[in-house]
């Protein structure tokens, strides 16, 4: 067996992030608590640097390296950039939250950076093992992040729950992967796909068996019904800054994971997994939207709304067309952007000892700070899918993909549940604009400079992308079709 030195160039962003993460980890150990901003600044600079490297390497060609276990293609470029941008905003929003609670520790950013590295590997994985390793790096970092505020019992409970269920899902995933490996004899995504096209009829049953476990594991990680039970508890229990993180960027990586595994690897079995995804879609839309209505905690409400959004995401993918994948990608990026803003608003309203995570904490926001009430209004209407916000085009795109695949009824189901969904978003708008502020929180609020700017940019991006959705849609089509 001869050993070739692999081409390192396509993986330079990953190596850069890894190197920086190790460096910051060591540096942080020597910094006094008052100098944590150095850690923060370096982490943000790492993200910016990774973005520059990714942009520098970006191109339409598909490059495989490390014995074909690592891929760099337009999709990986675009998704990585989306991950950097989302994480950048997330860290920016988190800082004031952590500082106000005396938990502004370097671990938060370093774990976050390792999670970003895990996402990058998930996005570029071209081998069942690489994909699995990326997922585990992300998951382990996320478990630690949820537990990171160790004095908080709810967070510890959430972390425990997250860890146990996440480990279970990883086990299922490995089991499914082993079935696929057993039937096809390869871990390489491309080889699996080509083996599947020529697979013996007799192998069909064990293959579907393995596929079921893959789909279940993916549904677990994304939080699709009926594998969603951890989502509300973890989102609600984790410190808002951490919820902000796990609710946004990892979804982008999970989308890539799904694309690599199901579409690129198991593509020839589209007919089999399409049916499974349809069931997950309908259940997620129904359960997510209906149960969200009953929530009084805005974090739990967003958790259920995420579940519903996962349903829409699946809708784009199950269509099985390039246009459908591009729509789903558009959806997930838009979702991450909107969710970041939504959780960012909770951070903005919270203070030490006051989490602002109940719906009525938003009461009368229009009187306390009209501008940010308007920003929140844009974010909420985007989640509800009302034009002219970008959320509408995301829904339009995935519904179009489903209708194009001949699933008109699924499109109808989706719009029915989006009406139900509109109600609970509207209720928040109602609370902000029509209700009077609560007595204990009626004074005007003004976020700190960086948070204010970032939230405004985030909210306006939702509007501007809605007025000019063509560019981002073209980018996602380019990412999928090359």
């Amino acid at each position, binding site marked *: 067996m001869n050993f070739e030195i692999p081409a390192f160039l396509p993986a330079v962003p990953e190596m850069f992030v890894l190197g920086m993460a190790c460096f910051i980890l060591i540096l942080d150990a020597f910094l006094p608590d008052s100098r944590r901003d150095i850690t923060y600044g370096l982490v943000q600079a790492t993200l910016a640097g990774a973005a520059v490297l990714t942009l520098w390497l970006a191109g339409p060609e598909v490059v495989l390296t490390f014995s074909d276990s690592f891929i760099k293609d337009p999709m990986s470029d675009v998704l990585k950039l989306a991950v950097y941008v989302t994480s950048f905003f997330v860290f920016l929003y988190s800082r004031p939250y952590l500082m106000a609670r005396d938990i502004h520790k370097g671990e938060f950013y370093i774990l976050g950076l390792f999670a970003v590295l895990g996402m990058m590997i998930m996005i570029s994985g071209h081998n069942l093992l690489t994909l699995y390793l990326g997922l585990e790096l992300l998951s382990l970092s996320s478990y630690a992040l949820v537990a990171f505020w160790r004095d908080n019992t709810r967070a510890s409970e959430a972390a425990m729950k997250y860890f146990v269920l996440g480990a279970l899902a990883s086990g299922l995933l490995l089991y499914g992967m082993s079935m696929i490996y057993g039937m096809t004899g390869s871990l390489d995504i491309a080889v699996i796909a080509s083996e599947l096209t020529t697979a013996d009829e007799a192998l069909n049953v064990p293959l579907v068996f393995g596929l079921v476990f893959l789909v279940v594991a993916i549904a677990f990680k994304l939080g699709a019904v009926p594998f969603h039970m951890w989502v509300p508890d973890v989102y609600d229990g984790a410190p808002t800054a951490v919820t902000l993180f796990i609710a946004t960027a990892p979804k982008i990586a999970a989308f890539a994971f799904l694309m690599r595994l199901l579409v690129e690897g198991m593509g020839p079995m589209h007919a089999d997994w399409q049916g499974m995804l349809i069931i997950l879609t309908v259940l997620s839309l129904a359960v997510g939207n209906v149960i969200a209505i009953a929530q009084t905690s805005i974090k739990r409400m967003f958790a259920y709304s995420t579940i519903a959004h996962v349903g829409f995401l699946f809708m784009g993918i199950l269509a099985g067309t390039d*246009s459908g994948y*591009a729509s789903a990608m558009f959806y997930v990026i838009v979702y991450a952007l909107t969710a970041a803003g939504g959780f960012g608003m909770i951070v903005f309203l919270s203070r030490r000892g006051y989490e602002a995570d109940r719906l009525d904490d938003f009461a009368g926001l*229009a009187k306390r700070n*009209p501008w940010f009430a308007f920003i929140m*209004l844009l974010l909420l*209407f985007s989640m509800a899918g*009302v*034009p*002219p916000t970008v959320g*509408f*085009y995301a829904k*339009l*795109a995935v*519904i*179009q993909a489903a*209708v*194009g695949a001949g699933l*008109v009824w699924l*499109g*109808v189901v989706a*719009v*029915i549940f*989006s*009406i139900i969904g*509109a*109600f609970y978003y*509207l*209720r928040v*708008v*109602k609370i902000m*604009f*029509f209700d009077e502020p609560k007595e204990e929180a009626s004074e005007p609020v003004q976020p700190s400079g960086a948070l204010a700017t970032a939230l405004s940019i985030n909210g306006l991006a939702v509007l501007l992308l809605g007025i*000019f*959705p*063509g560019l981002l*849609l*073209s980018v996602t*089509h380019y990412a999928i079709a090359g």
Partner: protein
Amino acid sequence: MFADWPILSLLIWLPILGGFLTLAAGRDAPVVARRLGLSVAVATFVASLPLWFMFERGTAEMQFQEVASWIPAFNVNYHLGVDGISMPLILLTTLITVVVVIAAWESVKDRIAYYLAAMLVMEGLMIGMFAAMDAVLFYVFFEAMLIPMFLVIGIWGGPRRVYATIKFFLYTFLGSVFMLVALIWMYIQSGSFLIQDFHALQIGMTAQILIFLAFFLAFAVKIPMFPVHTWLPDAHVEAPTGGSVILAAIMLKIGGYGFLRFSLPITPDASAVLDTLMIVLSLIAVVYIGVVALIQSDMKKLIAYSSIAHMGFVTLGFFLAFYIYSNTGDWQGASLGIAGGMVQMISHGFISAAMFLAVGVLYDRLHSRQIADYGGVVNTMPWFAAFFVLFAMANTGLPGTSGFVGEFMVILAAFKADFWIAFLAATTLILAAGYTLWLVKRVIFGTVANENVAGLSDMNRREFFLMGLLAFFTLLLGVWPAPLLEVMNATIDNLVAHIAHSKL
């Protein structure tokens, strides 16, 4: 001189940007906000006048077209244009917005800049919707206008405003999302979102019926038709005066416009099959809702029900076309019904606006909408009483007012279809006279009912101007409807010729 100006884009974006400017400049300065808001509204109205004067009368072609690529991935274009159906509605929108802005001058005290901004943004969105030639663009404007209206009713509305505004939003959202699925389906079939391409698309009968029902949900809720009308009385009663005026004068017309732009030309065969259903629903609106209006004790609610009844005439006129054609083969009668519906829409825009303004005038003084709280207003407010009686007469369809023209045309068309339809439609003349004149009797005439009424002061110059303006258009359209008909003629003839061809 203006022919190659992007007039339509100007009409859309001037009020939207002007609205945000009003908000930014006038947030803490109500005087600035009022002046700026009025300037923007008047400027938009003036900018819309070239549409009327430079409109080419004899053609059904889309005019003042603008095209720019918008979402290339879905072949969606920023494509604007107007024809004889949409142009008068745009002018109505710009005119009514001026009225609404002036009407808010003193009566809106809380956060006036936000109120005016919402109204101006809404104006731009409504014009965009009337001018859109691309289905996605249409849908975006169609939905986006829910947001400002939601806020207007919810912030400045009456005591039950939250219930009313959420009901309003969810009802209209419910209607429109099914239309979205239908639009996407047609895009998949035709590869384009251009509405004209949808018109040309051959569609099978089952699909046509499903598409028709999807459009029906969207537009019937907007118009609103029986039995999906229940949001309207709630929304109207709770909305501030300006919100009611915009709702009645323009938003309801969107439903009628949608039928003409989408349902009839895209699904002519389904429309022909389901015309009986539509006619029956329209007649229920005319007769049953008319009776319901009789027993209302709240003035705004009474006018809201009267609006539903009048809009029933609009849908009746539209769908009689198919009935007449299949029974007599006479397309002349068919276009009479559609033209009648259109005239009725424009006329109702003026009359309902005036009626709601009149209630607003009383409400500003006594803070009550209950009929029982008034009586003998003519003794203290003679000028107001004169206008009120005029608009009440117009509402009942008195010859010489615009209310007469549309109703007369529709009833005439109904006679060509079937005597009994005409008979039932004509009962509106009695019912409308019943509820409107009874309202006049209880509110305006009689002896002064209580000391509140005794202390009323007559309209000020601002209110007088508004009433006078609307009275002018009501009478002008009543005695000389020819210019309006001339503008619409070619488009309606073209539409009628189009729907005569089966798409099967």
